[in-house]
């Protein structure tokens, strides 16, 4: 019998793919099954939204909104597509929307007031200072550059997946990523004095 024994002790939902669970959600408007998908992905999505919005509070709002949107729009999910691609796209859009609604742009958790006073090589600085420089530099990136960078660098998604999620050509993902890295390099150098 070709039974994967290592799966035998897993819970029932753990054995199901995202797409199989979405099929049930779509067919029956089943909240309980959808909640299992929420449990499965909310930590990762919260982390992504935290990187995109710069703070945990907005990230949680964005994830809340993303799952609500996903459930409301469940009929739009097509069986032939990947759940994560669809869900990530909704979450990215929600993160942007939450920030815009807050009308305050990207706001990091705790930006230091006197970043410009820091001098010295980023590699030689204390860890906290480097982190604050990174957050500030990311905050200044346009949304379309930041999202590509966050998805590739922090979420570790493949460039092809990012292209699918953002619904842009692969070449656009490459060029946005290159632009994001170049801008960050310049900005980090200037922060470093």
């Amino acid at each position, binding site marked *: *019998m*070709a*039974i*994967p024994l290592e799966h*035998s*002790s897993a819970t*029932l*939902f753990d*054995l*199901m*793919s995202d797409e*199989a669970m*979405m*099929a*049930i959600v*779509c*067919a*029956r*408007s089943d*909240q*309980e*099954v959808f*909640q299992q998908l*929420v449990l499965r992905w*909310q*930590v*990762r999505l*919260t*982390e992504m939204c*935290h*990187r995109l919005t710069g703070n*945990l509070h907005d*990230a*949680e709002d964005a*994830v*809340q909104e993303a*799952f*609500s949107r996903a*459930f*409301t729009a469940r009929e739009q999910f*097509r*069986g*032939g597509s990947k759940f994560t691609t669809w869900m990530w796209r909704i979450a990215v859009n929600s993160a942007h929307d939450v920030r815009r609604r807050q009308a305050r742009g990207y706001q990091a958790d705790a930006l230091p007031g006197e970043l410009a006073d820091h001098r010295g090589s980023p*590699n030689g600085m204390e*860890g906290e200072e480097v982190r604050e420089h*990174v957050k500030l530099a*990311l905050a200044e990136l346009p949304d379309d550059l930041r999202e590509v960078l966050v998805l*590739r660098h*922090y979420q570790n998604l*493949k*460039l092809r997946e990012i292209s699918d999620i953002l619904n842009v050509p692969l070449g656009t*993902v*490459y060029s946005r990523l*290159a*632009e994001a*890295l*170049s801008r*960050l*390099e310049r900005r*980090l150098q200037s922060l470093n004095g």
Partner: protein
Amino acid sequence: MSSELDTMQHPDDSEWMPFLYGECEDAQRNVLQRHLESCSHCATKVAGWRNVQSTLDTWTLESPRAAAGATGVHVPAVAAKDSVPVRLNHDGSQFVEHHRSAGRSRSSLMTASMVLTALAVSFLTGWQISNAQHPDIADLKKSLSADVRASLVADVRREMQTQFQTLTTDKTKLTPLIESESERIITARLASLQASSDPEEKLKERQMISDILANQITLRNDLEKLAVEAEAQIIRTRRELLRLEAATRPMASEGAVLKGNAPQF
């Protein structure tokens, strides 16, 4: 340096991205790597990006699970029967509370039946549900009537019973078959060994007999392992079915399910 820049064709910035993130095809990576080794202009640029990458890594987040705390995800209600929205904590505690207080609704039972069916079918067929497989929603919808589900669950149970019996029968039949066939071959080989006067030929015959005996032992062991593994799997699956059935029955009959109303295989 300027003559080097004039004569070399530098890859576009965007071409370096798959290289930088380890997503290049081998051939392309080799081309870019060779270029990097011979072009200080590009080497400096790539080193700068790599420095940015390592600097970005300094921004680590504490575990979102812990950091997220008490806030959760709110799934909107979509129908009258679902008019009470569900508040879900990140650790799932709120979900459990809701699930219990809902009194194991008919909805839960139907959902569980579907999950049970998918799980049991996957056990029986060896089909691993994975992210790579996308069921056709339209097809699934067609198969969702209560009758079909009930019938499927019954079929799954019958099929499990059949599979187990088949395996047991196969084992019973195969073991003596292997042994009698081995015995027949070994007897023939021994006769051949006694008849032969060539020392080299005798050596070969002895080696063959030894190999046959070793194969026989291996085959017998494999068969035993297969039977044990299958039986263990059946038991585990049955336990999952019991657990699911207990979890989806009305609370009043829960004890009865566990004590005497277990599915029979």
